């Protein structure tokens, strides 16, 4: 009997190990490279990305009395806990649940901003932002332009968790930044980690243009850094060069930046070449200057994103590089992206432009 119990326990342990193994394989297609440089001096605190975002909203609610945070299930802290504790701290009229209706959330936020309030709206998953597409593209993006600057909703920031998460399937994995990149008047921003998330979110909230802030949800808990506790912002419309080299330029944003950082390390180890790695950060308007300067130096470029290839934002970058850096290019611009299929459930490891697909593309670029 005792033997049996031990046997069963062993079996159970094996099972747990096996499941853990599967989960690990499924949910970590990247190694997290924390930011080592601090954007500002002063006190820091270990935060994951969820906490850094919470901290940015906390600072906003503290310093801006008109600011409100709202969306589905935001009241109790949000399904990803980004608004944790804010309702208790600032009251139900400032941090609140809305009915389950994305077009309503976006429209309501535009109205708040039009009347002079700071509106931080949450769409529960970026996959569910499409019912609000009309409000964001036809209304928010065009409000300043169509009124000749008389009205604007620049005080609106829409936050939405996006990107692959290991097992999100079709509607908990999408990266819709390319869809919004075609809407002049919007700002679209994707952070790569806690320090960037806090600085960029505070910029989005204070920026005089409506912003869509896409948070790679796989990083909420897995990414941790020493984040400055004070108030700081990072510039919008600016890319960041994270690693330098002369063999090729690797461009990405969000989680994909970490994939590219690992690819650069692999290239260094296996091929003996060094690459520029650029985090684009702002998708719209994007930092053409930083990217083109790098490509003029390296002569080769790989753009990688999780969203599907066709008409993905990589296409815009590739076309611009071709136009601006034609005489410097030693090889065609390569794109490693999600395939032109809906984001699948069990096939996720084959779908994502992981380090091996990026590495292969890079070797082809270098050997061209």
């Amino acid at each position, binding site marked *: 009997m005792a033997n049996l119990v031990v046997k069963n326990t062993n079996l159970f342990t094996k099972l747990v190990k096996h499941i853990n193994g599967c989960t690990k394989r499924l949910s970590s297609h990247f190694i997290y490279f924390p930011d080592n440089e601090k954007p500002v001096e002063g006190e820091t605190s270990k935060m994951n990305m969820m906490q850094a975002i919470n901290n940015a909203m906390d600072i906003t609610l503290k310093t801006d009395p008109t600011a409100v945070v709202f969306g589905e299930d935001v009241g109790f802290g949000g399904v990803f806990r980004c608004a944790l504790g804010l309702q208790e701290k600032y009251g139900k009229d400032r941090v609140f649940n809305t009915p389950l*209706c994305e077009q309503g959330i976006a*429209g309501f936020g535009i109205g708040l901003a*039009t009347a002079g309030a700071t509106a931080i709206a949450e769409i529960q998953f970026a996959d569910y932002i499409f019912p609000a597409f009309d409000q964001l593209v036809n209304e928010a993006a065009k409000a300043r332009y169509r009124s000749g600057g*008389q009205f604007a909703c620049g005080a609106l920031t829409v936050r939405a968790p996006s990107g692959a998460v290991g097992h999100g399937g079709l509607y908990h994995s999408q990266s819709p930044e390319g869809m919004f990149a075609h809407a002049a008047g919007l700002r679209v921003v994707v952070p790569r980690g806690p320090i960037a998330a806090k600085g960029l979110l505070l910029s989005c909230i204070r920026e005089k243009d409506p912003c869509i802030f896409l948070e790679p949800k796989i990083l909420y808990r897995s990414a941790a850094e020493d984040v400055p506790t004070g108030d700081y912002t990072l510039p919008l419309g600016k890319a960041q060069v994270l690693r330098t080299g002369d063999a090729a330029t690797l461009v990405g944003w969000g989680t994909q930046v970490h994939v590219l950082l690992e690819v650069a390390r692999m290239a260094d180890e296996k091929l003996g070449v060094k690459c520029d790695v650029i985090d684009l950060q702002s998708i719209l308007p994007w930092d053409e200057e930083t990217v083109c300067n790098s490509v003029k130096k390296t002569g080769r470029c790989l753009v990688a994103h999780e969203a599907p290839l066709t008409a993905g934002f990589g296409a815009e970058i590739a076309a611009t590089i071709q136009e601006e850096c034609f005489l410097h290019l030693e090889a065609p611009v390569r794109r490693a992206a999600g395939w032109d299929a809906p984001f699948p459930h069990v096939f996720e490891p084959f779908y994502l432009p992981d380090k091996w697909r990026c590495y292969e593309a890079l070797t082809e670029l270098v050997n061209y």
Partner: protein
Amino acid sequence: MALRTSAQLFRLQALRQGTRLLSTQNIPNVAQNGGKVAEFPGVKAPYVTEMKFLNETSYDPIPIYRVMDNNGGIVDSREEPNLDKETLLYMYKTMIQLSQMDKILYESQRQGRISFYMTNYGEEGIHVGCAAALTPKDMIFAQYREVGVLLYRGMTITELINQCYGNDEDPGRGRQMPVHYGSAQHNIVTISSPLATQMPQAVGAAYALKRRPDNDSCVICFFGEGAASEGDAHAAFNFAATLECPVILLCRNNGYAISTPTNEQYRGDGIAARGPAMGLQTIRVDGTDALAMYNAVSKARRMTIDTNKPVLIEAMSYRVGHHSTSDDSSAYRSLEEIHKWTKDDSPITKFKRYIEHKGLWDEETDKTWTKECRNLVVRTMQEAEKKKKPHWKEMLEDVYYDMPPRIQNQMKQMENHLKKYGEHYPLDQHKSE
């Protein structure tokens, strides 16, 4: 124990009373479950054993509130609003000014002088009735057929016509189609073409007003009965109620959405019936009766500011004109039908008779004022036509608060292009540096 039972009985009685008030016809009110209300979190309702489905005929239609009859006579003297002479005359004069502007701008579109126009015929009463009941602090979100409200608020004929021409004096900088007015100075949010998008926005703006200390203003949001079919209308009703916003949602039900009659738009009791279902204070009003509109909006304004409970008003009217200059409505409705509404139920005629009965107006004054309005429009149009359009560079301004480098480059590209190929563009119609 006895006390508790009687308290329960009292509650049950109150509930029955409430149910009866909600339904104007009989819903079986046999409470079961030991007289207790069911404990589902979603609703507070009693159980019944009689199976009965409800439909649009389970309730009497919501009645239409009116103050005046077709001859401008007051039906119930207790309902006559106490409006002074100046206000009454300003209301009437605004209606005439609006209809004269409509007439001339409609014609000018036919002559190709402006690209597009939409008239307000038949709905003038809604406009001035609402506008007279509001204060300049109240924020306006319009659909596009509410020019009377804008005029009453103080937007000038010159401002409106400049917008239609998209000339250099248009505050919208010639970027939008005609009739897409807006004025920050007058608290009128710029109109956009996508229908019903302004509705949840108005609710959000009302929430912002509510949070201001000592708020004494509300938001009014206009929309047609066709727009009420959009998802954004549903969002607005629900958000307004659950988030308790000081907003008046005002539906102009004029019978048509372009060619689509209301029986192809909805099958319930109009738009008003949706109000109580979503927790809105609701009333249906005769939109051809400017006094009834005034009363309803005055009361709604006070109520919504004091309680933060949103109000839905359905103003019944008839779209006398074509939908727009791109539409010929005789393709889908009869001339007799239109004629009936211009003859018996014209909001202008009704109001004119009312102020005539009061001795404030006569035929002679009417002719003079109509002529004056007409001349003002014609003169303003001639002036607007002579004005240059904004510099072409304004095409790329205001997209963002600061112009991003890529747009700066595009402006430079166009500038160089015009240096070489300028003669192929209407540069002479636009301002130069």
